């Protein structure tokens, strides 16, 4: 009978634990604005590459003067060298917390690599291998538009080392 009492106690404890409810819905969180997608690489990687980043500028890069810190809206963390694809999210793949994208239009989103030993905001240190361009868009570069309170997905960028896009002015 002692054994039965023990069984009842044990089963009762586990039954009681089952009343707790288990998985709960995540509390509502405001949507973090930004965008995300996949970067796909084809062609031959330059063996001298030291880093690859996704970079976003607010205004078009019409002259070398547009390549400045005030126009720079976002720099991703480093893309693995040699990767065939890279999935990103601007909220979780940023090089620094200072880069928080807000609602608005971003004229230029590109993937660029550098061969210099140190990270530098010097136009000459960067080479663009892919830009965001919506299929069917006649322009060379398509803007990324983030509506208020939304996260935009599907911002996919194709990079071909053997056939790079037109480079911004130097």
């Amino acid at each position, binding site marked *: 009978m002692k*054994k*039965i009492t023990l*069984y009842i106690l*044990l*089963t009762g404890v*586990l*039954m009681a*634990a*089952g*009343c*707790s*409810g*288990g*998985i*709960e*819905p*995540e509390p*509502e969180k405001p949507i973090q604005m930004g965008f*995300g997608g*996949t970067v796909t690489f084809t062609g031959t990687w330059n063996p001298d590459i030291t880093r690859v980043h996704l970079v976003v500028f607010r205004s078009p890069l019409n002259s070398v003067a547009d390549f400045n810190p005030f126009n720079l809206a976002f720099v991703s963390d480093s893309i*693995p060298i040699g*990767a*065939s*694809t*890279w*999935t990103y*999210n601007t909220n979780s793949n940023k090089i620094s917390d200072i880069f928080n994208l807000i609602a608005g239009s971003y004229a230029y989103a590109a993937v660029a690599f550098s061969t210099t030993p140190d990270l530098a905001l010097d136009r000459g240190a960067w080479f663009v291998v892919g830009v965001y361009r919506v299929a069917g868009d006649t322009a060379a570069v398509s803007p990324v538009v983030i509506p208020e309170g939304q996260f935009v997905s599907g911002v996919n960028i194709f990079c071909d080392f053997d056939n790079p896009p037109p480079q911004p002015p130097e």
Partner: protein
Amino acid sequence: MKYILILCFAVIGHLRAQSSIEGRVTDDKLNPLPGANIILTGTDYGTASDQNGHFKISALPSSDYRLRVSAIGYTSYESGKIILFNETRRMNILLSEEVILTDQVVVTASKYEQQIQSLPVSAQVLQGSSIRNKVVTSLDQVLRYIPGVTVTLDQVSIRGSSGYSRGAGTRVITALDGFPLYTGDTGEIIWDIFPFNALQRIEVIKGAASSIYGSNAIGGVINLITEDPKKDETYIRMYGGAYSDPPHELWRWSTGTRYFNGLHLTQKLTAGDAGYMLSLNRSESDGYRSDDFYKRYSVFFKSDIPFSSSAGLSLYGNIYTMTRGDFLYWKDSRNALVPRDEDAGQRVSSNRQFYGVAFKQSFSSSLFLTNRLSYYRNKWDDQSDAENFSRSGLIRNDLSADFQVTQSLHAIAGFEVTSGTTEANIFGDRTSFGTGTYLQAEYILTPELRLSGGIRYDYTKIDSLDAENAFSPKLGLNYKISPGLTVRLSAGTGFRAPSLAEAFTKTNLSGVVIKPNPSLKSETVSNLEFGGNYLFAQGHSADVSFFYNDYKNFIEPAGDITDGQISFTNLTDAVISGYELNFVNTINSLSLQISNNLMYLNAEDKGRDRAMKYRPKFTFTSSWIYTWQYFSLTYDMRYWSRVDEIDDELVLLGLVKDGNKRTEVFVSDITTGYLLGGFNLPVKISFSVRNIFNYSYVEMIGNIAPLRNFSINIESFF
């Protein structure tokens, strides 16, 4: 004086008055139980039931008695105080099948019948009546409560042999009366395909059984034994039920109640010595989640046709067709019962067929041959963007010889061959071929000591993969130290070839990209098990086992973080070890059977120095069965500890939002039934509540397990 004489005569008359007790002993289907022992406890009076289950104890002096009725394999019945005074008391006694394993229970772990206590490996048997008492709608609901067995969604694993791979490949062979149930492509088992109302018992063999069952039995075997159609009988079962509202208002997605229902009809007929069984099944559910409905229909046919006293043929057929929603993952934890937008509205249709012919020929009392020829057809289509489809066919033949060489030496040998073809956009057009031959022998050295050994050779060629072959030896020992204490030991190796689905799947399931791995290799295991069983007293036993499995090239799905795609890969080394404790208690005075099981599992991916996915460290199951004549009450409870590892890649890549939400599992089910046998009606009405606390948990990320549901079940046999 006159009054004194009258009083004396009355007293003498009282003492001389003779009474009797008569009645009938039946099982829970009102079938007569011949040979049941009927005794009046504390007296010398007693008898046994005849062929029709009838009994009569006559010439009983007037007194008060207690009646005890027992039969091997059934729980005993003990009456309350019966006061007899010159009368005939009629009593109909119903005995329920024991869930408890006794020495008399036989299993076919080695492809021939042996007493369970004589095996060198751990095994579990669940009787058909126990399955019926649980009033299940699918066989996996039963499997979830079998000690040592875990089911993740619909994928079964014995002692942690498998995690979750969405039906691509299995490490547990499921066999129906000895026919392994395959498909040519995935190896996936659909649990409601089986006529589980017509099952006589389920045997679960734990641990690698590759030495006799071949490739897919690396984790164990589930053998479904159907009833023999030995008499004319009709069985009808109807059930209907509904799901509760979700536990969180936020999860409510449907304004209406979600229902499910089913209808089963089994007809057994005999003609001379031949027996036939036809089973028709239909089950439908609205589903407790959006896009999670199903409509399933199946036909099962079995016939036993003896040609002579030494030869006979058994024919099998099973046709199953199904349409269901294809719920992949939840939208997020706030919309846990709704699929992701990209999966909404997806459907899967499938049709499966199995045909088998078993021919048995006895050449002497010590040698007989069995040939099993079977064909499996599997066809399915989904309505995803990729429009996946597959058509596969597989033919198999197994010739085995069972030879009682001497009184103490028993041998079984066999030869198998399988050949399959698959046409599919998801796997490509593929072929597979396999052959195996095996020999196993058991030697009874002394009445207490049994030694067994066996070896199997397998050769497989799966399309463009390299041909592979393997020897799988196994040694076993079973030693009865005392009448109540038995120890067992087994060691061996096992082997499993990858399934077509594991090697060649190439698809995109709404963003979840699965890529092929044409360099996938077979996996092997070296395993060791030591266990013992101690019978404290009649109906009270404990069983303990320790197991250790060292896998090489273990096949598991893994995400490639560089490209976000999933493929099946060979882990360098995986070790799955642990122990299992089983306690079984039958308390006849309370008409109660209790079974408790605890399993500890340590599943390590040695190459990556981390736990393997979807393996809970601790599982505990408890089953309580109370039966009193026509009334039965079953309570089942299971606990899983929170799994350490899941498909992290799917969460990191944002494919399953809130996918890391998981918890321990606490689930309780209760079923109560009443057989209207007291009214001589062969009708049983049952009421069942599953997940009575409406506990929210996932077995697989992004998939909330069934909500609390209520059902009423009516079954009749005549």
